[in-house]
């Protein structure tokens, strides 16, 4: 698949396709990470876009105010988002599910309001007054990755590969989490919480881990977004975007490995197909959520049956969580 994706810009060199694919890589990354938090960790987080903004605003501001090269600013802002998510996690994750949803939503909303209501001039540039976070207009002119100088008009292909690398890394990370110890811990907590907890699997600890690590990749996606679009504005907090991304997870299938990717592909293509009906876009997005939750709760990947490997691990974990030793162990 990676090879196929790498071949795309050479087989279909249309500019529009390549830029749209880059956008797809960014959203797909956000969605795979959100899926980890929501579907695997069971955390009702609505602060994902705030963490994404942390990455893109961090990159933009480090570039704009301190003239950091973006190659440095991008990982730095991702680390910053990691720290921010730790703070949010410490405040929210001790609470029960719905409390987490409301607090994270409120945190995202407050950040948004503080950004757009900020009208005091922090600096002035040729465009006039510029608030610290760019206000409604956002931040631009913070430099780029140097692809334009290196590749000339082919820079969009370079952005494409940057996005692809991002998605590949984030996806690999999500597979490791779902199939690895963290995923097992959460599955154990779901199947038999009492036994899991008495074996030292604390929910808070693992939730904080998954929340913080996925925040890192979410913010990295935000940083790539900043580098790709070369302008960052408060539109990334918009509710429509949140809805669009959430629909991807729900359509694809929450908690599964491939679900978010499938959902991202389906919704990006559908969005392209319904370009002419722009007015109805948000309405359609809104309808998708209840329709899928009610009629197809497993999403599209749930429709085509569970993967063989997944059900095998699930049985194993259930056996362990129920206190039956796996075959061949010494007890």
């Amino acid at each position, binding site marked *: 698949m990676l090879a196929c994706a790498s071949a795309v810009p050479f087989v279909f060199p249309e500019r529009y396709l390549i830029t749209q694919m880059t956008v797809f890589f960014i959203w797909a990354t956000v969605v795979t990470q959100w899926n980890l938090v*929501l579907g695997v960790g*069971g955390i*009702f987080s609505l602060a994902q876009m705030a963490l994404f903004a942390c990455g893109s605003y961090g990159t933009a501001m480090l570039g704009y105010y301190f003239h950091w090269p973006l190659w440095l600013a991008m990982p730095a802002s991702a680390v910053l988002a990691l720290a921010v998510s730790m703070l949010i996690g410490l*405040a929210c994750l*001790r*609470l*029960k*599910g*719905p*409390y987490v*949803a*409301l*607090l994270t*939503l*409120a*945190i995202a*909303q*407050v950040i948004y*309001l*503080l950004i757009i*209501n*900020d009208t005091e001039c922090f600096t002035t540039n040729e465009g006039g007054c510029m608030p610290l976070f760019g206000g409604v207009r956002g931040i631009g002119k913070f430099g780029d990755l140097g692809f334009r100088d290196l590749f000339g008009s082919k820079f969009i292909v370079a952005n494409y590969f940057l996005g692809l690398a991002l998605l590949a890394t984030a996806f690999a990370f999500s597979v490791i989490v779902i199939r690895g110890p963290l995923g097992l811990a959460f599955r154990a907590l779901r199947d038999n*919480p*009492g036994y899991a907890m008495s074996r030292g699997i604390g929910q808070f600890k693992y939730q904080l881990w998954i929340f913080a690590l996925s925040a890192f990749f979410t913010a990295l996606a935000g940083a790539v977004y900043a580098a790709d679009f070369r302008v960052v504005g408060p539109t990334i907090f918009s*509710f*429509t975007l949140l*809805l669009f991304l*959430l*629909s991807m997870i*729900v359509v694809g299938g929450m908690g599964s490995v491939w679900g978010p990717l499938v959902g991202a592909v389906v919704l990006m293509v559908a969005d392209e197909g319904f370009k002419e009906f722009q*007015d109805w876009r*948000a*309405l359609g*997005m*809104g*309808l*998708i*959520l*209840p*329709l899928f*939750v*009610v009629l197809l*709760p497993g999403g599209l990947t749930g429709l085509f049956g569970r993967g063989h490997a997944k059900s095998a691990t699930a049985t194993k974990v259930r056996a362990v969580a129920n206190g039956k030793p796996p075959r061949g162990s010494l007890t």
Partner: protein
Amino acid sequence: MDVFTQIIVSGLTLGAMYAISTVGLSLVYGSLNMLNMAHGGILTIGGYAAYAVSQQWGWPPVFGFLAALVVGAAVGLLIFVATAWPLLSSKNFETNIFIATIGVGAVFENIVLKLFGPYAKPQPLNIAGGIKIGAVLVPYQNISILVVAVVMMILVALLLQRSRTGRAIRATAQNRDAARLMGVNVVRVYAQVLALSGALAAVSGVMISSLATLSPTMGGDPMLKAFIICVVAGLGNTYGAVAAAVVIGLIEASTQYVLGVRFGFALLLLLVIAVLIWRPSGIFGKSRVVRL
């Protein structure tokens, strides 16, 4: 002293409006374990229903108010039939209903946008003039909001405490299975709760829009505040929610006066986080022993 009166008046008005919309949310969470993210949408629809009846049809304002009540209840019922009912037996009800109602809320917002356009409109249910307390002019509008809110609160409390329906609602909230075994029609109780909550949300939408303006997105902010109030009081605790709403209205009014409008909400949020670290299930919430 005048400043003080001013803060009290606007704080109480805010608190009254918040209380009305919060009670609905709290009832729904208390009995169904359902976070209704479409609550803001009902608020908006209520405001516009009053506008449509009293402005576009030219009927007397009282009918606008009643129309909001009826439309709100109908919309609440619609949410129950379309999302909550089919999901009731699903495994992750809380997550699923949460996601589904986010979508429903977006649909409501867009329907209003399509019908009435994106521009802000004044709410015609407005009473001009006011009385003077000291040097402060207290608008009749604020007073009527307070009176309506108190009357509605009393009605809701009577309904919950004295009527058969109310007893069924409270029984279901306490223990769903026990209520069902005692012959309570749980599904009907749920439908009633959502209709009641919808009607309350619509009324609060009319009030909020009469102080500010009508716009398709007007529901989002009050809904978020109602949620915060619910969380502070402890989700599902209806009487605690009313007290918290009044306190938070007063706090918001005073922070807005002291620090400016910009930081009112941010400060409120910090306060809430502090409260939740101190008491993770809200001020009036009882920490329950979880049995596995």
